C-alpha cells in the first residue's frame, strides 16, 4: 500500500518514498520531482506526487527548544500537533490555531496555512509562525520570517509544499489554565438565524463552529461556541482512539444512513452549556482513527469553499444545490472567517465564511454537482481549499487566487505535486 491522502481516491503512486529524518542533510538527487509528505491528512492530492519521489517528513519529528517565558517552540517540521499537545497541555500551553484533527504535522499545517475555530480572533496558523528553515534543491538553506527572507516566508505559508522542504519551524504557543473547554450549544434553523447567533457568539467566544444539516428542506444546525476553561485540571484524559481496521468494499455512507444520522444528530439531547475535554471539542473525529475508510474503496471527496462576507445568497444557493442533489454527508461544517490577513500568498481563508462537507465518490454524478457549485462559488468571488481538493480545474484555481503568478516565482524547480500539475494544466 503506497502513501495515500485522506480521501483515499484512486491516484497513481509515487515512484519512490523515502524517510526524511536528518534535518542537516541535503535533499536527495533524484531523476524526477520531489515533494514533502507530512501525515497525509490532506483530502486530495496536494500531498501526492505520482511517478515522483515523496519525502516522508514525519521522520523530522524532534522538538528542538522551548522558551517558557514566551511560549516559543522550535521543532522539526514533521512533529505532529498531537505530539505538541501531549507534551505541552499538561504544562499549561495550547496551539495558537488548530485544525479539526490533531494528526497533522507542523510542516503540513504551514504548507496549507490551516485555520481553526478561532479564525475570527487568531487568523490562520501561519500568523503564529515566527520563523522556519527552507531547504531548496539547489542546496540553499534560508531562515525565513516576517523580516528575514520575507518574500520566501510569504510564499511558503500556504505554499502547498512547492517552495522546498521546511526542516524546522518556530511557532508561538498560547497559555491555558485548564485542559477543558467551556462549550455553549445553540440550535438554529435557516441561514439568517445562523448569522445572527454567530455574530453574537463571535463577539463573546474564542471558538465558534456550526454543524449543519444540508439535507433538510430549510438548513438547520447547531452552533458550538467554546472557550478554554479558566480553571480546572491540565491532566490529559483523552482516550486512546479506536481504529477502523479495514476498508469495506462498499461505502457505508449513503442517503439512508445520512438522513437518519442528521435527524438524530440535530435532535439529540444537547446541554446548553458544558465543560468538555479539549480532545472531543476540537477533534471529534480523531476518536476513530481511519474513519475515512467508512467510504469504501472508491474513496470520497470533501468540498470546502470560502465565500466573501456579502455572499450569503451564494451560500443559500450552494446549500439548496446540495439538498436537491441528495448527495453530501453528515460532516458538514459552516464557519465564518474574520478579517485578520494571513502572511501567505496563496492562503485559502478570506473574510467571509466557509462551508465544508464530505461526499461519497459516486463518479460523474458527484463531479457534475461540484461543477455546479464551482460556478456559484466563482461568481461570488470565492475559492476552494487546496487541502481538501482533488478535482478543481486549473483555470478555476488560477482565477480565484489573485497572487498565483507572484507565487509561481518561488516554486522550487525540482518540486511538484499532483495538485500542482492539475492547477497549472
Amino acid at each position, binding site marked *: *500500500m*503506497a502513501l495515500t491522502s485522506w480521501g483515499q481516491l484512486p491516484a497513481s503512486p509515487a515512484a519512490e*518514498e*523515502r*524517510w526524511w*529524518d*536528518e*534535518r*542537516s542533510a541535503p535533499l536527495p538527487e533524484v531523476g524526477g520531482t520531489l515533494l514533502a509528505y507530512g501525515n497525509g491528512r490532506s483530502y486530495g492530492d496536494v500531498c501526492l506526487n505520482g511517478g515522483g519521489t515523496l519525502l516522508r517528513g514525519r*521522520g523530522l*519529528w*524532534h*522538538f*528542538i*527548544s*522551548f522558551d517558557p517565558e514566551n511560549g516559543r*517552540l522550535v*521543532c522539526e517540521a514533521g512533529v505532529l500537533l498531537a*505530539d505538541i499537545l*501531549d*507534551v505541552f497541555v*499538561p*504544562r499549561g500551553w495550547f496551539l495558537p490555531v488548530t485544525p479539526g484533527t490533531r494528526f497533522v504535522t507542523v510542516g503540513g499545517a504551514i504548507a496549507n496555512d490551516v485555520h481553526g475555530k478561532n479564525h475570527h480572533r487568531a487568523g490562520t496558523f501561519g500568523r503564529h509562525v515566527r520563523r522556519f528553515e527552507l531547504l531548496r534543491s539547489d542546496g540553499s538553506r534560508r531562515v525565513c520570517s516576517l523580516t528575514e527572507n520575507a518574500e520566501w516566508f510569504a510564499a511558503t505559508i500556504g505554499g502547498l509544499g512547492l517552495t522546498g522542504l521546511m526542516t524546522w519551524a518556530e511557532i508561538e504557543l498560547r497559555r491555558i489554565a485548564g485542559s477543558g473547554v467551556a462549550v455553549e450549544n445553540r440550535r438554529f434553523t435557516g441561514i439568517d438565524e445562523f448569522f445572527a447567533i454567530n455574530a453574537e457568539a463571535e463577539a463573546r467566544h474564542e471558538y465558534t463552529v456550526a454543524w449543519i444539516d444540508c439535507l433538510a428542506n430549510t438548513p438547520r444546525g447547531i452552533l458550538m461556541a467554546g472557550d478554554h476553561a479558566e480553571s480546572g485540571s491540565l491532566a490529559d484524559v483523552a482516550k486512546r482512539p479506536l481504529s477502523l*481496521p*479495514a476498508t469495506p468494499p462498499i461505502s457505508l455512507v449513503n442517503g439512508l444512513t445520512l438522513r437518519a444520522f442528521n435527524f438524530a444528530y440535530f435532535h439529540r439531547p444537547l446541554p446548553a452549556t458544558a465543560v468538555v475535554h479539549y480532545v472531543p471539542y476540537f477533534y471529534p473525529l480523531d476518536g476513530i482513527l481511519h474513519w475515512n475508510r467508512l467510504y469504501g474503496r472508491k474513496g470520497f471527496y470533501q468540498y470546502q469553499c470560502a465565500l466573501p462576507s456579502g455572499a450569503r445568497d451564494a451560500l443559500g444557493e450552494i446549500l439548496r444545490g446540495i439538498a436537491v442533489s441528495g448527495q453530501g454527508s453528515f460532516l458538514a461544517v459552516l464557519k465564518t472567517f474574520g478579517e485578520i490577513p494571513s502572511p501567505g500568498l496563496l492562503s485559502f481563508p478570506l473574510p467571509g465564511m466557509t462551508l465544508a462537507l464530505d461526499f461519497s465518490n459516486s463518479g460523474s454524478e458527484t463531479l457534475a454537482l461540484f461543477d455546479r457549485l464551482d460556478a456559484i462559488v466563482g461568481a461570488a468571488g470565492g475559492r476552494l481549499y487546496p487541502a481538501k481538493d482533488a478535482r478543481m480545474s486549473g483555470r478555476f484555481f488560477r482565477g480565484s487566487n489573485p497572487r498565483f503568478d507572484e507565487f509561481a516565482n518561488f516554486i522550487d524547480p525540482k518540486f511538484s505535486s499532483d495538485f500542482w500539475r492539475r492547477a497549472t494544466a
Partner: protein
Amino acid sequence: MQKILIVGAASAIAEAAARRWASGGNALFLVGRNAARLETIAGDVRVSGAASVGVFAMDANEVAAHPAMLQAAEKSLGGLDIALIAHGTLPDQKACERSVELTLREIGTNGLSVVALATLLGERFGKQGSGSVAVIGSVAGDRGRQSNYVYGAAKGMVGLFLQGLRNRLASKGVQVLTVKPGFVDTPMTAAFKKGALWAQPDDIAAGILRAIGKKRDVVYLPGFWRAIMTVIRHIPESVFKKMSL
C-alpha cells in the same frame, strides 16, 4: 522518577519510547552510534520534560566498550532502573546467502551484541536485586523462514537467551522482558509495501512501557501477533519447509 538506559536510542521505536518516558519526567541515558543524531534526540527529550539526559556514542558491536558505557550511564543517571536494548538491522537475506562474512556480521549486530549487553545488565540488576531489562526481539525469531532466517536466527537466539536469564533472575526480583513486534513502519522497513498489519513506532513504544509497568515476560506487539505466531509455530515442519515464506 526512573533512571533509564536506552541502547539503540536512534531507533524509531526507541525514540518514541524515550519521548514517552521523558514526558513522565524520568532521567534518560541515550546510546547509539551516531553522535550528532543522539544530540538531536537529547534535545527532543529535554523539551519533552526529561529530568536529565546523557548521551554516549558507541557501536553495539564494540563489546569491549560496553562496560565503560554502562559506567557512564550509571554516573549520569545516578543509578539504573530500566534498560531498553533496541538497536538492530534488517539484513539483506539474499546478500547474506552469498557472504559468510555478512551473515556473521548480521548475527553479531542482532544477536551477539545483544547477548553481551544483556549479560552485563543481568549481572548488574541481579546484584541490585531490582530493575528491568527490556529487549526488542521480533516475531521473526519465532520460526526460520527463507526470506529472512539470518535475522530470524539472531532474534531467536536473543529470545532463548533472555528466557534463560529471566529464569535465573526471577527469584531476584529482576524483570527480563522480550518484546516481539510484528511489522512496524520505521526506516528499517522503508522499502516494504505497507498493509493493515503494520503498526506505528509509537504504538510499539506504548506497548513496551505498558509491559514494563506490568512486569510482563514476553509481549507480542500489537497483541494479535501472538495468535498469528501460534499458528505459524504449529505448522508441521514437513509442510512449512515447502511454503514460500
